[in-house]
């Protein structure tokens, strides 16, 4: 008798909740996945391809599809951290197979040596190089993402990747050394008559 009660009870429950689940799965369907946009917004948009994808957007799509989120050297640890927060994944150290984090750089064309071949213009993913065939080219520094894709195609090796220099506008005080430290520094000064 107990067994019978148990079976009946379980069956009844199964029927009721099964129906409920069926109803819910029909009514509460979720579609679309805006996470790609969110990931893309975090990626640094250098379009450098170091992640193994042709551009940041494709990599964002790949991450959303489950690829590791530690393949972006220009973004570095901060980007990995932000992606970890967004996706609820564990923080991973940067995958060195894709390169290492470096200071921000921009391309600089040594204009005397430029032969005007336009190869770098074709290579630049963000149209940050201007010039025409047989004419000298130059980099729009503000638009250069530092992807260095233009360096290799240059037949005369006249493109340098130079570190972005600090300006009076971008300079700010460093974070103090923390508990136990002094923010102070001494500098030697001469000829102060």
């Amino acid at each position: 008798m107990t067994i019978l009660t148990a079976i009946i009870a379980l069956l009844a429950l199964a029927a009721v909740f099964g129906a409920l689940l069926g109803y819910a799965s029909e009514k509460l369907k979720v579609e679309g996945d805006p996470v790609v946009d969110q990931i893309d917004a975090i990626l640094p948009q250098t379009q450098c391809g170091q992640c193994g994808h042709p551009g940041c957007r494709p990599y964002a799509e790949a991450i959303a599809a489950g690829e590791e989120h530690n393949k972006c050297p220009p973004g570095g640890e901060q980007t990995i951290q932000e992606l970890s927060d967004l996706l609820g994944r564990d923080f991973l150290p940067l995958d060195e197979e894709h390169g290492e984090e470096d200071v921000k750089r921009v391309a600089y064309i040594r204009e005397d040596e430029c032969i005007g071949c336009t190869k770098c213009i074709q290579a630049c993913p963000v149209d940050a190089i201007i010039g025409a065939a047989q004419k000298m080219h130059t980099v729009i520094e503000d638009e250069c993402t530092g992807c260095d894709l233009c360096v290799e195609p240059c037949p005369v090796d006249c493109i340098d990747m130079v570190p972005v220099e600090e300006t009076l506008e971008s300079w700010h005080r460093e974070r103090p050394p923390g508990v136990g430290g002094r923010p102070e520094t001494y500098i030697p000064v001469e000829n102060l008559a």
Partner: protein
Amino acid sequence: MSLILGPAPHTMQQGDTGAFMRQVVYATGPGLAVLTWIFGWGTLINVLWAVIVAVAVEALVLTMRGRDVRFFLSDWSVVVTGLLLGLSLPPTSPWWLTLVGVAFAVIVAKHLYGGLGMNPFNPAMVGYALLLVSFPVAMTAWIAPFDVPTFSESVALFLGQASPDAFSGATPLDTFRTWAGDAQALAGHDILHGRIAGRGWEWVNAAFLLGGLYLLARRIINWHIPAGFLAGLALPALAFWLVDDVRYADPLFHLFGGGTMLGAFFIATDPVSAATSNQGRLIYGALIGVLIWVIRSFGGYPDAVAFAVLLMNLAAPTLDYYTRPRTYGHDKPDRGIG
């Protein structure tokens, strides 16, 4: 020659954390003296021992954590922790009791959370609660007021060579709790009636009140927490005492009994674990007061400062969250995440 560089401001107010903490140490002087006068040498011995243990454990932990021992000891915070815990323990406490409490306070309640400034709970009270929960008998063995053991007896108690049973007597709070509601029995206990409140303890509390007022005068603490604390304790006590003066003790008895003043001026005011805004501090203090009254009146433990403070330590971040001031130029306080 060389120029010194550094961030603004280039001038600073006198005083540092260590100086603040030293003021707290000085302010406990009257209380310590009265405790010793009423309960004998045990308190003094225990306080000294607690401070020694606290400093030694702190130094040990700092060494293990690879920190600059001298620098971190210079803030005197661990001295205050040891001191407050020592003051809270019964004068009959054996050395190991103090050792366990202080070591736990410094290691678990302070350093496991990251050291000074990072601990969510008042370390001294965590140590006290641990001891009270683990060793209830030893922790309630107070000496009857003015029934002072000799110095050698105190030392023997401290070394664990004498049993506290021979000396211990109930405190006024304990007595009242036991006999509350029984008018006849209450009348028969003269420990309940001193000049202001319960015998002996009234002077202890008066002395801590004096020390607390000194701290207020030196602007080491703000008035908000003690005021809220005392009001939160006295008001419900007054209301219920007016309704039934046999079942409930009178407000003066609460204010000058047990660890009230020590708690109000020295323990609840620990800035690290308290609420930070003035409004928050007022609420924080008041809720501690109410909790103390509730636990004393209806709970199973004779005094309640430690539990009330620890409970409100938990609530402090929430209070801070809801008492955020309105920033200049904003219409209303922003309460985003955090």
